[in-house]
């Protein structure tokens, strides 16, 4: 088999430098991402503490900067408990099914435009893959994340877990609709499902071409629908019903411990970053910013800054808002956000038809 793999047509193809390029990009993006996710927990705890007039973790390392490392080591050395009557195979599979789609999304996100590698004279695009249906692919992958949660609830053999899993999946399925509906206006303007094309469509005019501001007021309405749906999709405060601790202990991950719990945790934060990145790309111009045409490497800097704003918003909401009741959540999704996004879509189409 190794002979077949490295047979002549395979070796001669121009794939080898491409594979090296991809491997390096995957290494850097995922290495950076995992570090960022770890530090996101530190950031969240610190900001939340300041909102609540506390100090937060500040003991491990300078300003508590080594706290994520300590947490990671603690997770690895905790006992891995499987409940007695749990379905052991599905119980192990659930965290994997939650984490894999969450991380796969990063293959598709564009962090910047192409830049020419000095010395190699090789043009390197600042994204891992380029799919012409990028938006749909991201929604497909985030949609797959539901299974991890449902499975965790089912396999734990615990009524609180099951309730949490069911709540969470119902919530994700409901809000996905409003989320997708709210961005159709953006797709209409950009005329593409390609994440790179959507970013490029928002270039120039000092940010006035961002889809947030174009076609007023549909851009702003769509943005707020997307924002609410994105918080609900990632099961965060004020929509964290699946893990409402006063009702359901910890929801779908009640029975999980050790690294399996950590995997759910990482998946949640990875989904937060994906949702923030999608909001950035669709409404805030992605990597666009001043002088990005002259210095393409500024792209990832702007991109990270915009994503960081949304991540701060997540923490800010968590520190400020109380939790919704479950029926209120469903009413908001089905009776307010979905009709509003449909009206918004019609409005966008009307503007596109008569005024542009």
């Amino acid at each position: 088999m190794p002979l077949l793999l490295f047979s002549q047509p395979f070796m001669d193809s121009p794939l080898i430098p491409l594979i090296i390029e991809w491997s390096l990009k995957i290494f850097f993006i995922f290495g950076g991402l995992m570090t960022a996710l770890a530090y996101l927990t530190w950031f969240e705890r610190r900001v939340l503490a300041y909102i609540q007039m506390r100090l937060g973790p500040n003991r491990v390392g300078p300003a508590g900067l080594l706290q994520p490392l300590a947490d990671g080591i603690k997770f690895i050395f905790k006992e891995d408990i499987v409940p007695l009557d749990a379905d052991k195979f599905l119980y192990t599979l659930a965290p994997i099914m939650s984490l894999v789609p969450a991380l796969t999304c990063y293959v598709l996100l564009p962090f910047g435009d192409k830049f020419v590698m000095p010395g190699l004279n090789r043009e390197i695009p600042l994204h891992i893959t380029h799919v012409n249906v990028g938006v749909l692919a991201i929604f497909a992958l985030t949609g797959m994340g539901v299974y991890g949660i449902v499975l965790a609830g089912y396999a734990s053999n615990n009524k609180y877990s099951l309730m949490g899993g069911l709540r969470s999946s119902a919530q994700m399925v409901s809000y996905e609709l409003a989320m997708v509906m709210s961005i159709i206006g953006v797709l209409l303007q950009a005329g593409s499902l390609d994440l790179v094309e959507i970013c490029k469509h928002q270039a120039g005019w000092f940010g006035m071409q961002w889809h947030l501001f174009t076609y007023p007021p549909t851009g702003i309405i769509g943005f707020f629908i997307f924002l609410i749906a994105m918080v609900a999709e990632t099961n965060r405060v004020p929509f964290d019903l699946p893990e409402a601790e006063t009702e359901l202990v910890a929801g779908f991950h009640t029975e999980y411990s050790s690294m399996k719990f950590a995997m759910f945790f990482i998946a949640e934060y990875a989904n937060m970053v994906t949702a923030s990145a999608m909001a950035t790309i669709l409404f805030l111009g992605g990597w666009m910013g001043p002088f990005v045409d002259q210095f393409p490497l500024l792209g990832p800097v702007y991109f990270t800054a915009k994503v960081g704003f949304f991540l701060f918003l997540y923490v800010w909401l968590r520190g400020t808002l109380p939790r919704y009741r479950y029926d209120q959540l469903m009413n908001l999704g089905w009776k307010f956000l979905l009709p509003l996004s449909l009206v918004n879509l019609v409005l966008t189409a009307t503007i596109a038809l008569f005024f542009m």
Partner: protein
Amino acid sequence: MTIQQIVFIVFALIITAGGVGVLVQRNPLYSAFSLILSFIGLAAMYILMGAQFLGVIQIVVYAGAIMVLFVFVIMLLNVRDDELHPDRHKYLLYIGVPLGLGLIAEVFYVVTRVQIAPAITDMHATGTVGTVERIGVGLLTEYLLPFEATSVLILMAVIGAMHLAKREKE
């Protein structure tokens, strides 16, 4: 052996394993997950053939939406153990196996006899075949009537479902 062939073989094995899994699993939840595995493999096949849109839609619609409902129903009904092992109808074995073998023989016959179109080697030349633009234009011009008919069918199904769900209990 090109890289396309390697990818094809890997995903063909995944699809087959998923399909067999649906049949042999006793637990309906395991069957559902085997089916999801098969769907994901199928989506990869579409993407391999340059139909990126179709591949992604396969995941969004089948793996992401329909199977979520399947899993939901299976979990909520919570099938009891005695229902997991129904009485086997022995005579089905004698009908099913010859029929299955006949079907496999037919597939082999078709594969060996039918003239297969030359494989598309240049992915960039045919890169526009499966794109959203082509499918959108096709649906709203050439295939408008089937498209609208399907829409009406779906609308009927939605109204029917609403009617059944809202029916007053006697």
